[in-house]
Structures are given as C-alpha cells and as structure tokens.
C-alpha cells in the first residue's frame, strides 16, 4: 500500500439519472428496461426537423441537488452542444452544459472521525443520457471484436446530472464515504434512485499521487466502469499502488483511462479513441437560456431535508461516530429518531438485526419496534429475530411476540447450567485459567438446551457466579 511519503489525490465525476417521468427534451416516458426502442419519438431518434423542449422538472431537480451540494445556482445558464459521432448519440451531439452550468461552485461536507472533510464541488450540470449500445457476436462479446452493434434509444435522452468534484479526496475511504453520503442525499431529495447496479448512479474517479508536501498535481488516470462503492474503493487503491510503483520505479505516469475488473481486481487500460477529442461546444441554438427565478430557488431550498452530514454530527455525541455515520449513510437514522428506547441499543439493533433482516426502515413503526427492542432480553431469541423480520409488515404489532417471555426462572435454569458445566469440564478449567471469552460458549449451550428461550441476562449472571465459584 501507499508508502508514507505518498499522498493520493482523488476527484470524482458522478452521473446521476434523474427520476423524471419523461425524457429531458421530449415527452417519451423514461422506461428503458422495456422493449428496445419502444419509448422513442422523432426528437429522441433525431429525425430531421425535430426540436428539443426542456423538461421543467429536471431543471427543478438539478437546482435542488445544486443547493444540497452548496452550489451557487447560476442566474443565467445555457445549454451547449457537445459534438461527436457515436451510434448511441442520434443527433451527432449531446445537449449538455459547458461554461455556464446550472450549478456552479459548491462544497459538500463529509464528516470524518477526525473532523470534517469539505469536498469542493466544481460544478453540477444537466445533460441528456446516451442511448444503449449492445455489442453482439464477435469474440466473447468484447467490444473490440463485436460482429455488430445494436442500438436501443429508450435510454437516450434521459435527464442526467453530472457532478464534478475538486481533487479534494485523499484516500479511497474518503471517496467511498463521500459517495455514500452523496448518494443518501440524492435519494432523500427524491430526484433519483441513484443505484449503481442499475446505472442510475455512475462514478468515474480521477486518481493521481504526489509526495507529501507537494502542492501541484501530477498526471492523473481515469477509472471507469466501477459499479459499486466497494469496487470504486478497490479500484482507487489498485491505481494508487500502481502509480506509486511507476514513480518509485523511476517511470512517469501517463494520462490514461482504465476499466476496473471487479472479478480480478485488475485495471485494464481502455483502448485509445480513434477520434480526436474536440467536441466543438457551442450554445444550443434550439433552446433558450435558463434563468432560475428567486422563487424557484427559494422553494427548492425550503424543501431541502436536513443534510446527512449534519445529521451524522448531530447523532455523534450520543452514539459515537461509527454508529452515527452508519445510521445516516444507510438511511436508518429517521427510523432511529422515531424509535423510543435506549439510544445505543436502538442504534445497534437498527444496524445489525434490522439491517441483517433486510427490512425497509421507512416501513417500520418506531413505537412497535421500540417495544420490541426494550424487551429484547426477555424474549426468546428466535422470537425476537422473527419479530424483527416482520417489523416492516403492514400493521405490525410487537405485542404477540412480547407475550412469549424468556425463561428467567433460576430454579429451572440453575440445575441445567450445573449439568452443562459438569459435561464440559475442560472448558470450565480453561475459563477459570483466564479464557473468559468462553462465556459465550456456555451461553450458547444453555440456549441450545432451552430452544433459545432462556433470558440471556439471567443466564449470564448465573454462569458468571457458578464459574467463579
């Protein structure tokens, strides 16, 4: 891994597909998992004479996102054309934004254990997504060897926000943390599903390294095609390591684009583009400028939820950083807030049992869950687990589960424990010679014999007393 003297420099480019009903510049429905090309029209197929008309909702969503990222909202933004040829780009240009994006400079605060990391936002702009190319036949379906390409224009024209950060991140962990909180923010704004697996959130990372103390930036490489936060972190680490190797080996890092292969953990350099990169941007003459009114901006600002970063800091004093961040990043902190009971206990159940059961936190009745958590030591474990799994069901009530009390009767548990200790003399001796971790083993034995119905607090007390006797 990174030697002490090297400092990674990471910037991200994030594409977010907006959750509008229709495409950015035409009234076709956004539904690209449907029959190919079934959601297309003269505009998104770029027939002669077809003209774009901007989707008001997409503009509103972008303004909202910009505000959440602390961006300045441009008083007057323009759409530009970005010109290049590719089968998934029917007009021969992408309508995007260039020198005057809707959202200008901003800053997004990511709480970290040692203090805040403020990540500069360079810009966030609105554009249209490309269509989908399906490469068919050829050698193993590899793009290079495809026999032909099939194009589905259903996705073409979906509103897309591109967020560009400053190179302010210093490790793969920071990048991952930033992305988790950003994703959470986007989801809570209700403007996108932001799911990497579905491609509604796509991340490219620009990575370089420099010696600590250096102020300039060295040549960076671009990583693409990483479809989970973990892969992004692994890809970044692999690239950092590669670049350090190159520099330390006396070589020089060259600007390059890599695909990260999650299966092998390897970076594959992308085939160089045949065409020169000269996009010939110019203002889109088929559209007029966007001047977000003060009213629109203020309305969007008023609708902003409390930002995740703020919520982490708010929860941190009572829960500690890790639990606070975990709750917020996983979207469980709102359930946490409405679930009564011991704060740490509630947080732990939310992050462990509830997460493990895959329950949608937004579907859970906090009061019922609170009752359950409060009784978690009295209720037999299998019953508790069952109750948690169902806590998101409509009309869930904790009461039927609470009726099943755990066995705390000492008269019943005492002899059973004696029996178990007698049968495991070796472990008893080991415990007494200092291996106190074996306590769990004995608890497990008791639970097994009682079908999990023993009250763990009573079992623990009895075991400790008898073992230290």
């Amino acid at each position, binding site marked *: 891994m990174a030697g002490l003297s090297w400092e990674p420099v990471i910037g991200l480019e994030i594409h977010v597909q907006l959750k509008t009903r229709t495409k950015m510049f035409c009234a076709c429905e956004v539904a690209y998992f449907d029959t190919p090309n079934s959601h297309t029209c003269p505009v998104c197929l*770029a027939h002669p004479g077809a003209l774009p008309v901007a989707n008001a909702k997409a503009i509103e969503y972008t303004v909202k996102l910009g505000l959440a990222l602390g961006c300045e909202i441009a008083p007057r933004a323009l759409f530009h054309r970005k010109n290049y040829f590719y089968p998934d780009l029917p007009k021969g240009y992408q309508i995007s934004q260039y020198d005057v994006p809707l959202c200008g400079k901003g800053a997004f605060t990511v709480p970290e254990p040692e203090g805040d990391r403020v990540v500069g936002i360079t810009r966030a702009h609105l554009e249209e997504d490309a269509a989908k190319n399906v490469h068919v036949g050829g050698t193993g379906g590899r793009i290079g060897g495809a026999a032909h390409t099939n194009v589905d224009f259903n996705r073409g024209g979906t509103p897309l926000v591109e967020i560009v950060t400053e190179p302010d991140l210093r490790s793969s962990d920071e990048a991952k943390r930033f992305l988790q909180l950003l994703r959470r923010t986007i989801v809570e704004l209700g403007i996108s599903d932001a799911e990497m697996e579905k491609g509604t959130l796509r991340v490219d990372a620009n990575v370089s390294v420099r010696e600590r103390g250096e102020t300039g930036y060295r040549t960076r490489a671009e990583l693409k095609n990483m479809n989970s936060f973990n892969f992004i972190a692994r890809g970044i680490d692999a690239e950092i390591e590669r670049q350090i190797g190159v520099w330390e080996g006396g070589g020089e890092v060259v600007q390059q684009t890599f695909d990260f292969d999650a299966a092998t953990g390897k970076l594959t350099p992308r085939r160089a583009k045949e065409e020169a990169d*000269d996009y010939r941007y*110019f203002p889109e*003459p*088929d559209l007029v400028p966007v001047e977000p009114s003060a009213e629109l901006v203020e309305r969007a600002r008023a609708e902003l939820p409390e930002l995740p970063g703020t919520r982490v800091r708010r929860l941190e004093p009572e829960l500690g950083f890790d639990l606070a961040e975990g709750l917020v990043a996983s979207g469980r902190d709102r359930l946490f807030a409405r679930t009564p009971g011991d704060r740490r206990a509630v947080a732990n159940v939310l992050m462990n049992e509830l997460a493990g059961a895959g329950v949608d936190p937004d579907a859970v009745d906090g009061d019922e869950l609170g009752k359950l958590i409060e009784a978690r030591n009295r209720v037999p474990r299998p019953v508790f687990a069952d109750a948690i799994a169902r806590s998101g069901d409509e009309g869930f009530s904790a009461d039927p589960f609470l009726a099943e009390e755990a066995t705390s009767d000492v008269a019943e548990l005492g002899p059973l424990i004696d029996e178990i200790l007698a049968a495991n003399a070796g472990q008893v001796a080991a415990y007494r010679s200092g291996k106190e971790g074996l306590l769990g083993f004995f608890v497990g034995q008791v639970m097994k014999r009682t079908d999990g119905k023993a009250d763990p607090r009573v079992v623990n007390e009895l075991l400790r007393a008898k073992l230290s006797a």
Partner: protein
Amino acid sequence: MIDTLRLTAEEALGLLERREVSARELWDAYRAAIDERDGELHCFLSLVDEPAGEGVPIALKDVIGTKGIETTAGSKILKGYVPLYDSTVARRCKEAGLVTLGKTNTDEFAMGSSTENSAFGPSRNPWDPTRVPGGSGGGSAAAVAGGLAPWALGSDTGGSIKQPAALCGIVGLRPTYGTVSRYGIVAFASSLDQVGPTTKTVRDCALLYRTIAGRDPSDSTTADVPEVELPEREDLRGVRIGVPKQMVEAEGIESGVKDAFERTIQLARELGAEVGECELPLSVEYGLPCYYLVAPAEASSNLARYDGVRYGLRAPEDAYHAMVMRTRDEGFGDEPKRRIMLGTYALSAGYFEAYYGQAQKVRTVIRREHAEAFERFDVLASPTSPTVAFELGAKTQDPLAMYANDLLTIPSCMAGLPGLNVPCGLSEGLPVGLQLIGPQFAENALFAAGHALERALGFDRVPERLR
C-alpha cells in the same frame, strides 16, 4: 377557365367560397400547369397524386417535413425518407384547409442562392429558363411565378425566400425570427432559419403568414405574435422609410437594379412616405463574413444526424465510423460538405474565439446598428438582390461569388428581423426586387408599405414569355 398565372390565392379562396369553382377544378388547373411547365422549370421534387382536402392548393419547399410525403431537403442522403410527423407549419396549413400539391426543389439543405445545389437537378426561372430562379427556395418561387402553385412556403436562413422571390418577380416574406415554428423543418442553421410565404401579392403573403405564425410549444424559440392585419391602405402617409446608404452604394449592384430601386423610392415619396438616409456600415461590411461563420458552424452540427443509422442513406462498410464517413461523403453534395468543413473548422479547438466567438459578437453589433436605425425609421428599404437572375452555371465554380448574392439580405437575418420582397420593376427584362426590413414583429408595417407600393407600381408579375 382558371388562369393560374394570374389568379391570386386570395382570389382562389373567393372562388371556392362563392362556389364558382370546386376545389377539384382548382387542383386540376394547377396540376395541368405543372404538367405543362414543370418539365422545363423543375420546380417540384415530388407531387401528391390526390388532394387531401377541399381548400386552396399550396406547394411546400422540400425542407418542410410532411407526414407520409417524401422529404429530402434536396439531398441524396435523404432520398426516400418519409417523415413520421408533420412539421408545425404543414399541420397549420392542413388545419386551415390548404391542400399540398407537392414538395418544391431547393438547394441541398437550403444551402445556396440558385437552387443549382439540389441533388436532383436545378430549377429554372420562369422569366428565362436559361437563368436561375435564385435560391435556396428557387422551386417555390418559380412555382408561384410560373403559375404552378397559387402560393408556397419557403425557408430563409440568409435570403432563401427573399432572393428567389426577387429573381422570380413575386412577393416573399422572411418573418421575424421566432414567429414561425421550425418544428419539423430540416434544419440548416437553427438561430437563423425561418419559414415564410412565397406569394403573388402582399395580401396573399399576409394571409399565409397569418396561417403559419404563432408560438409553438414544440419549438422553444418561438414567441407570441401580434395579430396579423391584412393591408388595405394605398398610400404611405406618415411612414418613415430609411435607405441604408451602404446598401445602395454596395459594390456589385447592377445599374438596372439601382435604377428600378430609385424609381420605387421616388414613388414612395409620391405616396406620402418620408424618406431619409440611414447608416448600416458594419452590418453591410461584416454581415456576410459573420453569416458564413455562424450558419456553417450551426449547420456542421445540425447535419451530424445524417449518419446512416436510423434513416436515410447508408453506405456499406464493416465498421461504424467508416460507415458514417462514407455515407456522408456519398450522401452530401459539395456545398453541404464545404459548409460542414467550414463550420467544423470555425468551432474547433483553437479557432473558436477568433471565428465563431467573434462572429457572435459581430451579430450583436449588427443588431445594435439596426435598432439604432429603427429609432428614426419605420421600415428600411434596399434592393433585395444586387443582380437580376443570372445564367445557370455562372457562379457554380466560385463559392464566394455565389455567397455575394446574399450581401443585402443577410444583415437583417443576422439581427432576426423580418424582410419582405416586393417586385419593383424590370432590368434587362428580368424582375428586380425591393427589400423592406422592419423591426422585430413589425410584419404588419411591412405588409402595409409593401401593399401600397405594389398597388402603385402595378408590376405585371406574369413572366413576359408566358403572357
């Protein structure tokens, strides 16, 4: 017997209303004229066999998308292309009861000033078939002048309605940018393209403009349009006409054109107009170069969609980029290629600021100069074309000479202003056009001035050889 050479659209409407002729008789009369003269004039690229309606016929320039009717923009790359939807103007014409006769010839993608750049052969001028009808809307202009259609729609980017109207001796309006929808019009240069009428009289022009103008939710660059008034007045009392000095003194204006123009200005004075001189020095000097940067730049992007993927020509190649490159090389003629190259160059890295960026600033200067002139005048007047119709082939080898045809029509196009051509006399037996320019949305003022002059001029718009 319907005399299609003389009958105006307004008269045709009257005949139908009073049931003096049937829609079928009207249609057949124009079809007969087409059968008789289109072999020579080649105004039409495609004809509709059966009338789809009971109204007055109309011809549409082939850049105007028509659902179910082949629309090629005069290009091989769109040969056989049949639109899936009507352009807004075609729809409005249909809704007003107009019946499409066919699609008229045009320079390929409306790029040209003579209709010789059509991939399907040139159109010819009804006044003299050895001469061009002007362009790019030469097909529409020749059709109306030659009695093959009562009226027609054209499109104008830098003079493609006004200049052919001038060369064919008819009326043509390039409307204020943003008054007529571009939705469904094969794009050449988006910030300049406007659809407009090509007609026999100014009143016909106002009628057709009224039919097609208005804000369109499908075209973000359209605005609300003031109510269109049919011109009635026959005098010009109280009208202030400015004559831009640099436009009448411009190099290359034929003396016969100048004479006809001056006679017309004198007539305007007699009709009660106050005529004065005004200045458009930068507009005239820099308009043409500005246009030949802005229009090709936009065109280079607008024509990128012709890639052989979803419609149109596709050349057989076994890799995508090679296929696109060969399709475009085979599908586009010289002029689109030249302008795509020029525009690509003007937008490319390192040249953008000096060319496209600077041209956009010149555009601001041109707007300002015009705005200043309109502080003192209601309309500006100049010749429309520096020359009368020229011989076929005379300028095809020299792009710059061809571009110079638009010297006088371009400046107001760059400023988004409306311009009306009214035939104002003959020179060497060929029509001369008067150009009237108004402020934004001042079409009514142009119609009023144009109508009064038209009445007083008494120009016989039927080509001498066809009388």
